[in-house]
C-alpha cells in the first residue's frame, strides 16, 4: 500500500483530498511562508529535465522550512546503472522523509510506492500524470472564476504524449467542467475520450474554442514522438492559438499553458503575452499548491 501522504495521480485521489489540497493551498497563499515542516527532509529525484516543477517544489519545501536534497539522474549513481528502487531506498536510508519524483517512465512513482514507505509525490511520470500541475491549474481557474462546474474548457494540442492533459482532464472533469479535446489524430487519438465520461473530441480548433471559458494549450512534445512525423505547417495552420482564433471563444475566455511553451507552435506571442494569458499566474500559484501537497504528505492537514 502506498503511504497515505503520497500523491501518485489525480485518478486515484479522493474528492475529499482534492478539496482539502485546494483549500489548504488557498490558506497558504494568504499566509505565505510557514515553518510547518521545519527540519523535515525531502528528496527531489529528477530523472528528466525540469525547470518550473523542480524549482516550484523546492521553493514550496523551503517556504515550509523543510530541507531539500536534489538528485539528478545525469549527475548520480543512476548513470552507473543503479536501479530506481535502489536509488530511492538509498535516499530513505540517508533520512529522506518524502520523495518528489519526476521520471520518464509512466507509473514509476506507483511502482516505487509499493516498496518504499515514505510519501511519494509524483512530479510527472512519463505520459501518465502530473497531478501537482492539474491541481495548480484548478486552483488558478478557481481563483479567477470561483467555480469549475459548468465551465467549458477546450484542451488543445498534444494530448497523447501529455501527462498534464491526463491529469487536467481527470481533475477538471471530476470538478464538473465540460471538456472538449482537440488535436490531430496522431496527438489526440479517438481513444482519449474514454478517459472520463462525457468527454468530446473535435479535429476543428475553431469549433473547440467556440464559447470556451478556458483554452488550455499543450506543448507539442517532439522528444516523445519516436519517429512520428509531424507536419509543422499543418499543425500551425489548424491548431495554433492566434488572436483570430481566440476571438471565437467567449470574450472573457482565458488561455492556459503548463509550459514550457513553444512560441510560434502552440500559440503566437500575442496570445502568450496577451491580457488573457494565465501562464505566469499558473507558475506563481504552483508554489502554494505544492506547499499544500507537501504538508499533506507529512500528515499536516491543518
Amino acid at each position, binding site marked *: 500500500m502506498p503511504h497515505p501522504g503520497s500523491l501518485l495521480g489525480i485518478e486515484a485521489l479522493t474528492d475529499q483530498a482534492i478539496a482539502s489540497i485546494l483549500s489548504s493551498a488557498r490558506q497558504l497563499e494568504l499566509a505565505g511562508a510557514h515553518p510547518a515542516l521545519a527540519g523535515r527532509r525531502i528528496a527531489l529525484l529528477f530523472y528528466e529535465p525540469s525547470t518550473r516543477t523542480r524549482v516550484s517544489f523546492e521553493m514550496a519545501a523551503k517556504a515550509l522550512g523543510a530541507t531539500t536534497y536534489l538528485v539528478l539522474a545525469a549527475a548520480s549513481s543512476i548513470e552507473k546503472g543503479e536501479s530506481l528502487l535502489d536509488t530511492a531506498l538509498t535516499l530513505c536510508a540517508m533520512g529522506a522523509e518524502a520523495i518528489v519524483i519526476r521520471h520518464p517512465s509512466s507509473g514509476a512513482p506507483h511502482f516505487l510506492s509499493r516498496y518504499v514507505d515514505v510519501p511519494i509525490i509524483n512530479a510527472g511520470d512519463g*505520459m501518465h500524470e502530473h497531478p501537482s500541475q492539474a491541481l495548480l491549474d484548478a486552483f488558478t481557474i478557481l481563483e479567477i472564476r470561483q467555480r469549475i462546474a459548468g465551465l467549458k474548457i477546450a484542451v488543445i494540442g498534444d494530448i497523447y504524449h501529455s501527462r498534464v492533459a491526463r491529469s487536467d482532464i481527470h481533475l477538471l472533469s471530476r470538478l464538473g467542467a465540460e471538456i472538449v479535446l482537440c488535436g490531430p489524430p496522431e496527438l489526440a487519438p479517438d481513444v482519449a475520450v474514454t478517459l472520463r465520461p462525457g468527454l468530446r473530441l473535435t479535429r476543428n480548433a475553431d469549433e473547440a474554442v467556440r464559447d470556451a471559458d478556458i483554452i488550455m494549450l499543450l506543448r507539442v512534445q517532439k522528444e516523445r514522438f519516436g519517429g512520428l512525423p509531424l507536419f509543422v505547417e499543418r499543425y500551425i495552420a489548424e491548431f495554433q492559438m492566434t488572436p483570430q482564433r481566440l476571438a471565437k471563444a467567449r470574450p472573457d475566455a482565458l488561455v492556459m499553458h503548463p509550459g514550457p511553451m513553444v512560441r510560434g507552435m502552440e500559440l503566437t506571442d500575442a496570445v502568450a503575452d496577451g491580457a488573457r494569458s494565465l501562464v505566469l499566474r499558473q507558475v506563481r500559484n504552483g508554489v502554494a499548491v505544492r506547499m499544500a501537497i507537501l504538508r499533506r504528505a507529512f500528515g499536516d492537514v491543518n
Partner: protein
Amino acid sequence: MSVLIRNARVIDPASSFDAEADLLIREGVIEQAAAPGQIAGADDILEAKGLVATPGFIDLHVHLREPGQSHKETIATGTMAAAAGGFTSLCCMPNTDPVNDLPAITRWMLQPERGAVVNVFPIAAATVGSAGEKLTDFAALRREGAVAVTDDGRPILHDGIMRSAMLQAAALGMPVIQHAEDTALTRGGSMHQGARAFRMGLRGMPAEAEWSVVRRDIQLARETGAHLHVAHISTAEAVEAVREARRHGIQVSCEVTPHHFALADDDIREYDANFKMNPPLRSPADREAMIVGLLDGTIDAIATDHAPHALHEKRQEFDRAPFGITGSETALGLALSILYEGRGLPLDKVIALLTARPAQILRGSEAGRRGTLAPGAPADIVIFDPSAKWRYEAANSKSKSQNTPFDGWEMRGRVMATMVGGEFVFRGE
C-alpha cells in the same frame, strides 16, 4: 521394471480412449490399458482412484534460458517446473545466448549434463543470430534434434526470407513457427494499444501488428505449401485468419497461452511488470475470441510461453522491465478452471490441447511420437486430480524465477505425479 497405475480415469485423446482403466508400463514404454483388475501386478503399483491419467503434456513454447542466461532459468530448473505442471516434453526457443542457430548448440542443449528431467525438443533459429538475414542450416539442426525453426521474438518480417525459410522447412517436413509482430508498429510499446494503455500513459502495441503478419504468413504458407505455426496467438483477427485459412486447406496451426485466455489488458495491476509479456494481454473481446477459438477447435494447442526473468529484472519501471512471465506450473489449473469448469469444454478436449494436438503439430519429428498412451509409446504420463482446488504460490515454484501474475490464484486441477519414460519425475503430496 514395471509400473501399474490402477483405477484411474485414463484419457488418451490420440486414441479416443476415455474410461476407468489400469495402465501398465514396462521398461519405459506403455504396455497396455485394460479394464480395472485385469492386469495381475507390477513391480510398483500406484493407486489412482478418482484421478485422471493422460499422456504427459507437450509445451510447444518455453524459454529455458540456457545457454547464456542461467540466472533466469536452467534446463534443469525449467524442466523441473515443467514436470510439476504435468509437462513431459518441452520445445525450447532459440533466443538463448548465443542464439541456437548451430547444430553444436542444439546438441549442447540435449547433453545429459544439462540435467533435464523431461524431454527437451529444441526449436532452432531460422536465421543466423535470428538477425533475419541468412537462413540457418535446417537439415543439420534437425539431425541434432531441432523439431522446428523460428526466430521467435525477432520475427521474420522480410517476405523473401520468410518464403525461403518456408520452402526449406517444407522440404524437410518441419514447421516454421512465427511470433507474429510487425515491430515497426510496436516500437516502444509495453502493453496492448487501447483505452487502458492510453489511461496508463503507456505506448501501445496494436492488434494489427499481430494479425497483419499472420495474414502475410498464411499467404506465404499457401504459396509454398509449408506448415506455418502461429506462436501465442492473441488477437481476434488473427484467430479468424487462421480459421479462414483452414477452410481453404492451408497448412496452418496455432497455439494460445493460458494468460491470453485468462487475462485481458484491464486486469493489469498498477504498473506491475508481472503483467507484461509479448504479445501483451489484449482486450476482453480478444480474450473471448481465444476461448471461442479453443472451443471450436481453431486453436490447436495450449502453450505456456514460459519466460522466466530474475526478480531484479522485473522489479523495475513497467516500460523498462523485460517481457514475459512463467507459466509451466499454472497451465493445467488455468485450463481446467477456465475452459473445463468455466466454459464446459469436455475434459478430453482440454487434454487434447495439451497432448495429441501439439504432437500432431510436431508429427515430422521424434516429439510427434509423444502425446499418446497407445501401446508401444514412450511412457510419458501425468496423473492429476481434476477436482482438487488449490492456491498457486509462486514462492514454491520449481522454476528459478517467480515472475507470474497468477501468484495466489485459486486453481482447479492439481498434478499428482508426472512420469517420463516410465520414471516418476514429479510426485505431489
